[in-house]
């Protein structure tokens, strides 16, 4: 859905494209920003591979269940874990592409400069939410790990697996939001300096 995401990116004011990244940013920050982008692209691919893995696992299960009359106990939960992984591990990549749809009703009414600030405010609020959820869910993951929680099924896989996938995904999307916000601010500062000179 590249076309769609591109359209959405434009629709959201092209924040990602306009943010120059600020050439005056310290080298350490630029390296950090590049690392975050590289991780986003990597986990995006991992998310896609998890969906493909799920389709292979399901096809395998259909053959075993309906033709060989031998269903597996692990199929359902493995697929749920794959779904959670594909969703949360790709959240940062999707955010990097501005692919999480927002409400654009004000976009058509408000002036472009106000819209940029509105989207900036939305990004700040999103960062706060994701950071909050990251802390809460990492703590829960730790609890699930240390107390050896498992699901109620016959297979009984450990519950820290899906929780850690959620926590990791939320951590990465928080970092992506941080990078986008800093770059947006740096982009604004660059623009102001350019206008002054």
């Amino acid at each position, binding site marked *: *859905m590249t*076309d769609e995401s591109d359209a959405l990116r434009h629709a959201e004011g092209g924040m990602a494209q306009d943010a120059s990244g600020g050439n005056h940013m310290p080298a350490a920050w630029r390296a950090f920003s590049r690392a975050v982008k590289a991780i986003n692209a990597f986990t995006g691919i991992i998310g896609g591979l998890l969906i493909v893995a799920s*389709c292979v696992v399901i096809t395998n299960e259909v053959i075993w269940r309906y033709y060989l009359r031998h269903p597996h106990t692990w199929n359902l939960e493995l697929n749920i874990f794959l779904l959670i992984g594909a969703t949360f591990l790709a959240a940062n990549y999707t955010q990097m592409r501005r692919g*999480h749809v927002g409400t654009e009703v004000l976009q*058509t009414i408000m002036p472009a400069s106000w819209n940029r600030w509105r989207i900036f405010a939305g990004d700040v609020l999103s960062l706060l939410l994701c950071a909050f959820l990251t802390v809460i869910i990492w703590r829960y993951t730790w609890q699930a790990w240390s107390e050896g929680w498992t699901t109620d099924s016959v297979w009984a896989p450990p519950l820290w697996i899906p929780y850690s996938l959620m926590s990791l995904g939320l951590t990465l999307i928080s970092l992506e939001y941080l990078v986008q916000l800093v770059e947006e601010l740096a982009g604004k500062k660059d623009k102001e300096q350019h206008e002054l000179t």
Partner: protein
Amino acid sequence: MSSHEIGLLFVIVALILLLSGMPVAFALGAVSVVFMLGFMPLANITGLAETLYHGMDNFTLLAIPLFILMGDAIGKTRASTDLYESVYRWLYRLPGGLGVANVIGCSIFAAMCGSSTATAAAIGSMGIPEMRKRGYAPGLAGGLIAAGGTLGILIPPSVTLILYGIVVEQSIGRLFIAGVVPGFVLAALFAIWVIFKSHYDNKRMRLARGESKGGATVEVERFTWRQRFEALPRILPFLFIITIVMITLYGGFATPSEVAGVGAFATLVMVVVIYRCYRWSEIRHILLGTVQESCMIMMIIAMAFLFTYVLSYLHITQATSEWLVGLQMSKWEYLFWVDILVVALGFFLPPVAIILMVTPVIMPGLLEHGFDPIWFGVNMTIIMEMGLIHPPVGLNLFVIQGIAPDISLKDLILGVLPFLLIMIGFIIVISAFPQISLWLPGLFFRH
């Protein structure tokens, strides 16, 4: 505070956050967290991971990313070009044949992917330039693809109907079958409009040129019977996939997620073997396209589970449903206002969010008034389809603008308008004659 007061506050905060520039998913998550902190015991916050996990612990949800994978894999290959050309060769003699070929292309593509934007992007990237080359008005070309794309969420498999089925606990197979007749009737109505409009445009242009008759406005291509039959094998892979999906789903051999899994697997094999799409750059393109759309929808679903959990915990859902039922409206009045609510929400929310946020509240009233939940699923889907082609959300409009940036938004909106009117008319007809959607499921599921 009473449930009604908390409910009102909840709606206000939700609206502010939705309009703040936050993505829909995070706005739903944020309002839930705020109300958990403000009105619910702390255990709900500490156990938030568990609530999210239980929301996603639903095997049927898997059908969504898998159908998206299926549609994306087909959309990223030459497959859609083949489909499009094959259909056109058989329909070129019809007035407006190219436009009709586009509508049919959208319908067949929709039957494989379940996504409106994917359908509009895949067929529109070939259809719009071809139609414009042959003299179709830009508004008609763009509007037709935008509207044809919406068939993606009505003709099964449909991501929207899967989610609706999960929320209202109805058979997804039954919902899929209920979408078949309305989907194809709507496609036929779109085709009739295209035939009429292109015939009218041709006539007007001939008159403007001072020609009495003949003299088509555009160069007319001709295909021999041999060329037409030559094109048929190109559709075979599509028919193969659709047949697999239909037999496994409607024959009761597998659940919707299993069908989606097998369908996606068969599609990937077809894409690699027939279309020779095995280079890493091509595979990567499919993976990233799939994961982005899937993640966007699944994050909304995950956060909407928190949203509905909070609504239910604070008795807002129950209190609002009781209030709606207690309004003493007639059956049709209730349906009218529910439809208006869905239309209004369509102005700023995507279909996935509308289903998850609104259905639990309006469903008790609909059942109380004797409406069939399967029929309402189809009715609601058509209304939400309209939201995809009218501003400001109008996702399909953005897709068309991405494909043909030189078509102005004004032309596009004017081009889409007749299709919107057809859809409104069809909603009225389907409300008066619910058998249009319920007849086929009744035939399949006699018991």
